[in-house]
């Protein structure tokens, strides 16, 4: 009985949605390929290509870990984007540049504290805009200056929140009832203005900021990068915090209500403007922190890092289903893993394209997201 039902459903899938089937098949094949590679099995196919091959477990583990790390960045930044998307109903193209804002302000503060007295205050606050002492001399790392890093995280969050709320007051608030597209276009304008204000203030040079001394150590026989570990821990703590906030507090309930049905929320007496501000505050803070952590992990800073991340963040949010923060986190991890693990098969020229392709396919064939059914819950 159960078997025939399953078979029927399978047949329906094959007939009705062949693309889903192909996607599944491809996924299974790729997973088998990874297993074969890990086992060191190689089956020769036509034209000098082969199924399987050799790859050490350490190599694979490394790719997966990298995927998780970037995935957490996408997910953390994606929470804010997902919330503004569902509560304010527009795709915020300036979200990436909020990450940039957080990265620069946070690192300005972190360098100022870590390198106090080593160089002029101006040069440090501007994140080594004109060179000066090298990152290792300044010593901004979790080992050498943990307090500087903590203060950097806080400053990144606060500064980004201030910028975000100011932008909301000036740009989005007068257009609150104008529908998605005008707001989207305005957000493109915000993105341009914000990115190039950052460039104007901090300069266009790409430069290193973190100290590397002692960051790579071995804990219990496993080599770890303490900066990646910091990112991992902070991101997880913030995600759990968001979960508790949305589930346990009145504000969280109000936000979920607004995401579900704005008019109903208004009728119920939810102060919508205040909820909108809270959304910007939370989204901005998370964006700023993820920008800061992203730089902590990669070590260098540049005025367009956030813009380059934007499409990945969109991909994460869309993959997870707009409006769901768990979806954004899961989507971020998937996109991060695709971005890194796809390097097994394709060259580094195309791994970003692979992530975007996944996003487009999800939009086309499952626009409600892979983890749909939950909205801002």
């Amino acid at each position, binding site marked *: 009985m159960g078997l025939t039902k399953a078979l029927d459903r399978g047949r329906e899938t094959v007939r009705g949605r062949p693309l889903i089937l192909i996607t599944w098949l491809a996924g299974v094949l790729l997973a088998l390929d990874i297993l074969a590679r890990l086992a060191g099995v190689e089956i020769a196919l036509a034209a000098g290509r082969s199924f399987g091959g050799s790859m050490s477990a350490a190599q694979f583990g490394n790719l997966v870990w990298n995927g998780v790390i970037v995935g957490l960045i996408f997910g953390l930044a994606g929470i804010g984007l997902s919330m503004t998307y569902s509560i304010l109903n527009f795709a915020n193209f300036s979200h990436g540049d909020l990450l940039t804002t957080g990265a620069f302000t946070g690192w300005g503060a972190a360098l100022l504290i870590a390198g106090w007295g080593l160089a002029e205050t101006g040069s440090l606050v501007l994140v080594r805009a*004109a060179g000066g002492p090298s990152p290792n001399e300044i010593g901004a790392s979790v080992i050498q200056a943990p307090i500087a890093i903590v203060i950097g995280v806080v400053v990144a969050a606060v500064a980004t929140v201030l910028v975000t709320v100011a932008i909301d007051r000036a740009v989005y608030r007068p257009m609150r009832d104008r529908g998605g597209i005008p707001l*989207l276009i305005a957000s493109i304008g915000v993105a341009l203005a914000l990115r*190039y204000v950052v460039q*104007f203030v901090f300069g266009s040079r790409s430069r290193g900021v973190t100290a590397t001394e002692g960051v790579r150590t071995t804990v219990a026989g496993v080599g770890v990068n303490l900066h990646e570990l910091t990112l991992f821990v902070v991101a997880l703590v913030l995600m759990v915090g968001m979960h508790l906030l949305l589930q346990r507090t009145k504000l969280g309930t109000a936000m979920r209500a607004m995401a579900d049905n704005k008019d109903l929320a208004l009728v119920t007496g939810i102060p919508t403007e205040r909820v909108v501000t809270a959304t910007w505050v939370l989204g901005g803070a998370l964006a700023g922190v993820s920008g800061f952590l992203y730089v902590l992990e990669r070590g260098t800073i540049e005025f367009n890092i956030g813009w380059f991340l934007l499409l990945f963040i969109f991909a994460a949010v*869309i993959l997870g289903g707009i409006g769901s923060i768990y979806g954004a986190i899961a989507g971020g991890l998937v996109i991060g893993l695709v971005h890194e693990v796809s390097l097994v098969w394709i060259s580094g*020229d195309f791994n970003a394209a692979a992530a975007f392709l996944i996003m487009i396919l999800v*939009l086309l064939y499952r626009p409600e997201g892979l983890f749909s059914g939950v909205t801002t819950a």
Partner: protein
Amino acid sequence: MTHRLRPDGGARGSGDADREPSGVRGSGGDASGSDDDDRGSGDGGRGTPRGKSAAGAVRDAVERTLGGNDLAVVLATLGAIYLLFTLFVLVANDFEITTSTINAIASTLRLLTFFAASYAVLALALNLHWGYTGLFNIGVAGFMAVGVYTMGLLSSPPDATSGMGLGLPLPIGIIGGMVAAALVGLIAALPALRLEADYLAIVTLGLSEIIRLTMNSGQLSSWTVETFGFGTGGGSGLNLPARPTDALFEGGAGEALLATLTGMGVRRSIVVDAAYLFVVIAFVVGVYWLLSRVGASPFGRVLKAIRDDELVARSLGKDTRLFKIKVFMLGCALMGLGGILWQGSYGYVNPNSFRPIVTFYVFVAVIIGGSGSNAGSIVGSILFVGLLFEGPRQFGGIVQNAMELGDAPATFAGAVGPLTGLDPTPLLAYGLENISALQFVLLGVVLIVIIQRRPDGVLGHRTETAAAVDLGERPAAGAAPDASRDSATDAGSASGSGGDADE
């Protein structure tokens, strides 16, 4: 005037407000005009909001003198920008009229016109998508890239320094580029047009980035060169065939003409570049003509109906999806053409020319001109190139030379520090040194201000109506909004030309 429900919905807000005081002139113009061509809606400026703003006053003045003649508006804008830039060059040369000054003026104006014309082709194509049909395509750069690269792969000589082409004649390359762009548009459109506008935006942006990354891949290039005998050259770019007009000056009457002109002191490059410029302008005119025809045709009326309310268009039995796919392909082909005319004319192209920012440039041009109007797209392109793209740089250079501010500080700290001693010079010098960053800030701010205050564009409410008669006309004061809309619709059907319905 126009009653529309665009996907953005909000654009109506101020449009409706603009419409209120305009009934007097409106009915006359629309009753006789009644068709969809640009002139019919050229009276868009009439709804100027009571001369409150400076822009409104200027618009009024322009409207009064030019009487809504689109060609006159385009030429007047171009003339004003020309005048401004001539002034820039004259100031930079201390008003000494020498041969070199005249050459500098000519070369500046040529560059300006070239950019304006290139953007005009792209803006017209985007206007077909966004202004006419309401498709929010922000992958313009990607479709340009497909056009240019296909042209290069077909027509570049096989012995090029970077990249490798098949060496076919240029017309084949150009047509191939347009066809390829249209096909990529088809692939994108088939599934993507079902999506809502903001999703379409993300899909097209993602697609344009995928295209750019593909062009950027060195591995792919060397593989295709080995397998098929052509390749993009990856990050180092692709050599392209020379502009066909350059050959005019090699031998024969062309060479003689060039010799005469250079004998008179005209720089050689100006003559050669100007020849190509005329080709681009001819293409602008051609594309404008084509799109005006499309807009005025029954096909175009369906497009506008889709933009105004897709559900209604579908209820009237139109296969809106097919219309959208067709128009998407046409627009993409024109974007490919725009790319070829612009980026394809330098003899060399690399993937960096197709960053998403180019798309936003084109978008700003369309929005400035007012989406939905072909003439507006051209005017928008001229204004964008003149005032936002080239203007700030020229202006900054002049101020920098004139004021002798000394060396600009290397960082922002060095620029702001002296402000405590009330010395703004370092900040000014720093600002002028980094004017390219400020230019982008200006671009962003202009975009925000326009979308906030003038969603209909600088030139006012120029969206062409889908219906053959004025549905927005209010019959009597005090009538309930619903009643007024009903009676307007009645009037529309009574006149027997209910827009799309009769196709």
